[in-house]
């Protein structure tokens, strides 16, 4: 028990440090006097940079990462598969499709519309997955369905590119698909926070079921737990968390896949205990990744989604290699 508590506290402490770092460091170099001014008067110039620029951006990265880490942990537990994540099940792709469609139709001018379209896309994917999960119990079938859904949503997004009349809209979609928390404000934080909270509540409700699923579907169904309810809760948690993440930051891959792996050994594999540290690890990853992307001396700022994929994919391959040896797969 203590060991899990200290893991979570440790992660939270590191996150706090990372957030402080993300507020202190940035592309604009401030003097000590300016830092003092920012602390004394948040409405001052330096104060604006720190509290209206860097802080909401860092908190946004934290929440988006936490949502992805949570969604990944929930889906991996639900499907008993270490390769599951919102990307695999098509939730991210469907949310991205919704956003791309909204942008091309000119919705970007109205605040919140693109985000709503992304959430609606994720919700539709979630509903579809819930409906399928009620009929087929084999996790493989759900994964295959998710892969099909993901490909189809990707194809429709490509079609939007293809038919898009204006190159500006295409560029905007592209920009958005790459994933970023650039220029995010406290309003964006206010968007993602309640969704993350709702997802966390659902995930907590599903947690005993995810744990029992370790023994396989039939043993779980005979265990006395209401597995049908827990399955639905888990899918809602994953869809809401992933949808909110895509709505606010676009498509950021790899975090949902990798965050659970980073902490799985520390919770000794328990898919229920994995949820919180996985969310924390995902949040930490994105805060650090965003800070690194900001500090990178490139002319064009590196997009967060590009950065996580570039760093994450090889790292993930390494983790997978080690896990595979351990598991004698």
């Amino acid at each position, binding site marked *: 028990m203590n060991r899990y508590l200290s893991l979570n506290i440790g992660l939270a402490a590191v996150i706090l440090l990372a957030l402080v770092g993300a507020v202190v460091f940035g592309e604009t170099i401030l003097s000590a006097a300016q830092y003092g001014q920012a602390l004394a008067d948040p409405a001052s110039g330096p104060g604006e940079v720190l509290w209206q620029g860097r802080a909401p951006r860092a908190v946004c990265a934290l929440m988006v990462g936490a949502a992805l880490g949570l969604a990944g942990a929930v889906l991996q537990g639900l499907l008993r598969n270490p390769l599951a994540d919102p990307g695999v099940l098509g939730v991210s792709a469907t949310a991205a499709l919704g956003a791309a469609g909204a942008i091309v139709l000119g919705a970007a001018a109205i605040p919140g519309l693109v985000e709503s379209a992304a959430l609606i896309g994720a919700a539709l994917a979630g509903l579809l997955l819930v409906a399928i999960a009620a009929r087929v119990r084999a996790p493989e079938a759900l994964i295959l369905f998710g892969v099909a859904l993901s490909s189809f949503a990707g194809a429709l997004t490509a079609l939007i590119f293809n038919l898009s009349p204006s190159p500006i809209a295409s560029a905007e979609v592209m920009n958005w698909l790459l994933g970023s928390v650039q220029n995010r404000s406290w309003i964006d934080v206010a968007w993602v926070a309640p969704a993350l909270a709702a997802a966390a509540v659902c995930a907590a409700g599903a947690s005993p079921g995810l744990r*029992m*699923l*370790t023994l*396989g579907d*039939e*043993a779980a169904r005979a265990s006395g737990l*209401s597995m049908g309810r827990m399955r639905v809760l888990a899918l809602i948690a994953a869809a809401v968390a992933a949808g909110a993440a895509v709505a606010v930051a676009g498509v950021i891959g790899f975090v949902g896949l990798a965050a659970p792996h980073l902490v799985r050994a520390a919770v000794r594999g*328990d898919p229920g205990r994995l949820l919180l540290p996985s969310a924390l690890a995902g949040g930490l990853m994105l805060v650090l990744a965003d800070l690194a992307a900001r500090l990178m001396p490139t002319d064009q700022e590196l997009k967060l989604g590009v950065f996580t994929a570039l760093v994450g994919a090889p790292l993930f391959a390494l983790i997978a290699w080690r896990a595979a040896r351990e598991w004698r797969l």
Partner: protein
Amino acid sequence: MSTLLELDGVVARMGAATVLNGVSLSVGASELVALCGPNGAGKSSAIRAALGLTTLQDGVAKLGGEDVRRLAERERGMRAAYLPQERHIAWNLPALEVAALGAPFLAGGEALQRARAALDEVGAGHLAERGVAEMSGGERARVLLARALVVQAPLLLADEPIAGLDPDAQLLVLERLRARADAGGGVLVSLHDLTLAARIADRVVVLDAGRVVADAAPVEALAPDVLRSAFHLDGVWIAAPDGPLLAARRLP
């Protein structure tokens, strides 16, 4: 004697095939019933039907006298423990945590205490902290048996619990199941080893092609004509010091 499990005229399909074709059987308290039959006879299906895990085309499955389909999930879980044939454990949990999954409604400390006792009972106390992915198949089978023993249900349904185990582990598993029945519980266990079935069980139910072809005291149920028709064996029972012994050969 109270009836813990009753199947009455159960018909179930798997795809186009009828896997249970009017199966009736029962298990009472303090009774260990062995379910025997060739591969594909419907042993696992019968166990799954009893737990309400399959859709029945006809007939009824009752746990503790009530239709399993009408029982709430939690109530069903409190009436029957299930040890599936499948021994895959998805994540590398320590044995103690796996065994504790048998008591999902108990507070953590109490569940762990029971899990520890159950692991000791199956001779796996020393494995408590070891991850199940780092275990041999036999060790994992013991841990899963412990998990089933942690469930405090009056009935235990075990689907081929000794498949793939060494002789010592086979006898240990059956000994634990026997102890469960001697302590007043009901046990239904599917077995391929007919000699062990005859030695351990109070009664043997023989399934063949989805039908019950014998339901009686072991040597009686596994009489030569049943061995011939259901198992395609030419066999005789020999009285040995430790109990009956089946000497059999394949029919030409």
